């Protein structure tokens, strides 16, 4: 068993190192492309940089500094990925619903594109949530999967939003696609609530929500650092995905080429 030094005792934290490396990469790329060295192509990269550094340090803290979990031992450390991804899945899908309602009320294209981006990022987060949840469940519950309210409703939520994406992919007309995706996203969000309530009437082995009162002090801080890392990275991913969607939308509605002049 290798024992690593605590984060506070390191002269430079791995997160700071990662951040510096990333900044160095950006500077080198700027120089090689003949731009000013401090040029940042778009604002969301700042979120990406901070998120990445926080994530590296947060995971180091979770793996090295955090105390052994009293019941689950070293396995409990997976919590520092599992819990933040659960929080962020909820936050991102909540924003999907908010953007969908905003699109139906205002009809602005930006909200439609944000619905698309948040749905995709939310699905990625929920896949991460399910995967870490399964790895967590095997050593603690003895099985990878149990028909548990929390698990079932999370899976149903993920499937609903995947359905929304399939619907989006199957529609060609831009206006129709925008409206119908928003309707689908609202449906997916509301159904989640009812599903959660319905499966609660089954027995559950998943613990209730944790709060700072029920978690040991040193763990709370590490969970918060990781949660902010996930938040910043999600903002970064959503903004990047939004730019792609925006470019695609502008390409789709580009004016037709002028008719060829025949002599």
């Amino acid at each position, binding site marked *: 068993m290798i024992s690593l030094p605590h984060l506070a005792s390191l002269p430079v934290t791995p997160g700071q190192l990662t951040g510096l490396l990333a900044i160095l990469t950006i500077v080198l790329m700027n120089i090689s492309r003949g731009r000013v060295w401090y040029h940042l192509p778009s604002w969301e990269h700042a979120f990406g940089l901070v998120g990445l550094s926080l994530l590296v340090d947060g995971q180091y803290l979770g793996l090295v500094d955090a105390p052994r979990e009293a019941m689950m031992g070293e396995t409990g450390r997976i919590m520092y990925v599992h819990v933040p991804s659960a929080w962020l899945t909820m936050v991102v899908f909540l924003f999907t619903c908010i953007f969908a309602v905003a699109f139906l009320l205002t009809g602005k294209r930006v909200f439609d594109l944000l619905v698309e981006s948040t749905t995709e990022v939310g699905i990625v987060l929920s896949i991460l949530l399910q995967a870490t949840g399964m790895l967590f469940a095997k050593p603690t519950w003895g099985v990878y999967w149990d028909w548990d309210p929390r698990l079932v409703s999370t899976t149903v939520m993920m499937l*609903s939003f995947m359905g929304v994406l399939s619907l989006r992919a199957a529609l060609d007309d831009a206006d129709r696609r925008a*409206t119908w995706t928003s*309707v689908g996203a*609202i*449906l997916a969000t509301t*159904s989640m609530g009812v599903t959660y*309530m*319905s499966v609660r009437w089954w027995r559950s082995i998943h613990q209730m929500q944790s709060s700072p009162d029920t978690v040991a002090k040193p763990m709370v801080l590490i969970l918060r650092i990781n949660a902010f890392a996930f938040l910043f990275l999600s903002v970064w991913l959503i903004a990047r995905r939004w730019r792609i969607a925006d470019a695609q939308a502008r390409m789709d509605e580009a004016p037709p080429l002028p008719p060829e002049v025949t002599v």
Partner: protein
Amino acid sequence: MSWILRVPAVVSKELLIEWRERSRVSSLLFYSFALLLMVAFAMPDVRMLGDIAGGALWLGLLLASTRSLDQSFRVELENDSLEGMVLWPVDPLAIFYGKALANAFVLILVASVITPLLGVLYHPSWHGQPWALAAVIVLGCAGIAGPGTLVASLTAQARGSSALLPVLLFPLVVPVVMASARTTILLFQGDPMGQVDNWLVLLLIFNVVHWSLDGLLFARVVEEAG
């Protein structure tokens, strides 16, 4: 609120279409019947059939519903009749509730034919009250038909709609299928813990949420449907 007066007209139009194409309802019945047989063949032991009867019933109804819901908007696409109805003008709410009621009616019809068949084929024991079974069938079919009508309106004009409908619909109706199947199983096997009422309340809540929300969302869908 004058749109409510139009709902019966839309319902009768839908049912008239169903009546004129009776082969559709009868093929739906044969489909569910064949499904019940197939479930029986897939079981390792026929003595287990009594225990799973409730689940098989709702699985059959759910799969049958995807076929009928898909048709319900397909017929409108010929001659642009949906756009015609909107321009008449029929309020979108009347169109939605008319169609959803008609879809629920067709499903209840199928359920009331295959439930007795289920009793003959699967030999479930019986410990419940007939009114409770009737309530489950009505609420369960309405719970599938309400969101199902909205989802069908979304998928009918998309590419590969018959595959897309279940993808969107099944996650939405998880609570309905769960509650209906649980209740039916409890009615067959006995309900010592008195859970039936809770499940019925859940079905009722689901129906209230979806039948009120989906109509409003449908109004936005048809604006783009033309």
